[in-house]
């Protein structure tokens, strides 16, 4: 959390400084739409992809909506539970047991994006949003290398600690800079801190790049 807040403040500071050095009027636009690819890190490191669309409601303020998917945010708790079960499976039957744990997240967030006035080519902004995220507990058990997750009823009844999904509130804070690369094409370098209020709260940081168009 401290790191992500510091990063956001830092980006805002850079943008503000640029604005102070070369004041210029912002080019009028009606909004933007972009695809986003990010590195996600928190409990584990993975990837995130998504899309975002924003509508300009005031020269420095845009309302945006974004959705996407983070491949894995697995917590230590789900890993521990899966390991406990795997160890007992190894005692219950003769085959070699392995397991895999993932917690992919699908999210939708809406919020506001404040564009910091700047005459520089890089247009800084900060944002905040709230939405929902569905966290899916994807635990697989392999016996002798074969996925036997669906046929383990004789050995284990899985609880919601390692199965099912949760849809919970998610909020996000972040910032970035937009570079109008060519005509209507924009490149958006961004960072977002997110927190999902699941039973075991999940923090996911996303830093990456978006490519889209403004209109």
């Amino acid at each position: 959390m401290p790191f992500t807040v510091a990063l956001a403040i830092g980006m805002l500071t850079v943008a503000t400084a640029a604005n102070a050095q070369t004041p210029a009027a912002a080019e009028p636009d009606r909004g933007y739409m972009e695809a986003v690819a990010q590195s996600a890190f928190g409990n584990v490191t993975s990837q995130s992809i998504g899309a975002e669309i924003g509508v300009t409601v005031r020269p420095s303020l845009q309302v945006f909506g974004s959705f996407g998917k983070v491949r894995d945010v697995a917590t230590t708790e789900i890993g521990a539970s899966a390991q406990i079960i795997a160890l007992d499976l190894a005692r219950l039957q003769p085959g070699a047991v392995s397991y895999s744990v993932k917690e992919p997240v699908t999210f939708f967030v809406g919020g506001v994006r404040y564009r910091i006035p700047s005459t520089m080519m890089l247009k800084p902004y900060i944002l905040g949003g709230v939405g929902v995220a569905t966290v899916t507990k994807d635990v697989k058990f392999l016996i002798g290398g074969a996925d036997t997750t669906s046929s383990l009823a004789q050995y284990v009844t899985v609880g919601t600690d390692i199965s099912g999904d949760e849809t919970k509130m998610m909020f996000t804070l972040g910032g970035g800079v937009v570079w109008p690369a060519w005509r209507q094409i924009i490149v958006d370098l961004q960072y977002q801190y997110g927190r999902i209020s699941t039973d075991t709260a999940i923090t996911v940081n996303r830093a990456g790049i978006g490519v889209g168009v403004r209109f």
Partner: protein
Amino acid sequence: MLKSGSRLAAGFVVCLAATACSKSSSPAQPTATAVATPDGEAATSSVTVPRPTSPAAGAAIRNVDQPVTLVVGNAVITLSATATYTFEVSTDAGFASKAYTKTGVPAGSGGQTSLTIDKIGAGTDYYWHARAEGGGTTGPFSAARKLTIGPAIVIDTATLVSPISGAATGARPTFTVTNATRSGPIGPLTYKFEIATNAGFSPALITANVNEGTSRTSYTPPTDLPAETTIFWRTTVSDAANGVTGPTSLSASFVTSLAIDLKKVVYLNSPDVSSWPQTATLSLVEQDGAGDGPVCMSYTDPGWPDSHWPFGGADPDFGVYANQWYFARIGGTWYGGAGEWIYRGASSCKAGQGTRTIGPDAGFGPPFSSWVPQVGELVGFMVSSVARNGPVKRTVDERSNIIVQPWRDTSLGSRSTGRIQ
């Protein structure tokens, strides 16, 4: 992504309308019966199957060994939840006909949980399994294990036949019972005879186990019981192979009034024979104090050696091997001594032991020499290897049992047995 998006959109609406969002369980196992905790929020545990440990699969358990204790290796449960166990016993592998069910059995320590179940019917095959519950989840049942309870075996009390209560016996009476009735696939039966001088059988004088006889089972003590003492006895029948023991019989008591304590006898012209081993069995004494007073003794000859007869005769190798013994109770004290000589080839009947001659005949001296037995008076008889004091040398120092019986004299009214020749 589109599917996820639509679900998210719906979720977003839900989340905006409620303080908490949703949780769904789509466990991979079709039999999952996860139960949400009361607040509907906390994750439920995952529960593995317990491992049946004991009895072994297909175990055959004797009915007498009930109740049976079922043991499982503990299941694993996640989220540090506490497990309880359910055990089921059924007469069919599908558990449609349960003979016993117990839920809420707390997890045992040491990685195992055990449950001693109530007694279940004998002579039946059963199946049992167990499962764990905890953390909002009920785990799967273990695979059914078969166990067989053996048939019921019942042993009744043996009936005491003899000595009956109130009987008068010698020092080594034979204890006899009518064999116990029984049911079921019984094994070889053993009869435990307990003999004591107290009704509580603590301590017992003798405890002996005897294999069952045909219709009746008997036991004869190898040592003398205390003379002139009230003796209690009882029996318990058991089937050791099946571990079944019947009820102990009621006790009976009798008096060894026909026994003589050789340690208390005053020996006349004879050695103390109380420590002589009993190697011959005196089975019958017939006497008649009338006439020439024959005393006939029937006994097993143990092969006692001859002792040279030093008083001359036609045969220089003549020898004797035994003496008859007579015991008289005079003034409350038993007096006894070796009387007539016995040699091989001769009759076991010895004359000269009439009512008025038995006292002076043996040369025992007073008070025996003036003793005149009364008809019906208890008199003791015995045989031994050469024992009488004098020039005839003793040999192996062995003896028979003693028979104590009433004095007879047909001249004084006793009925003739007709057997003395």
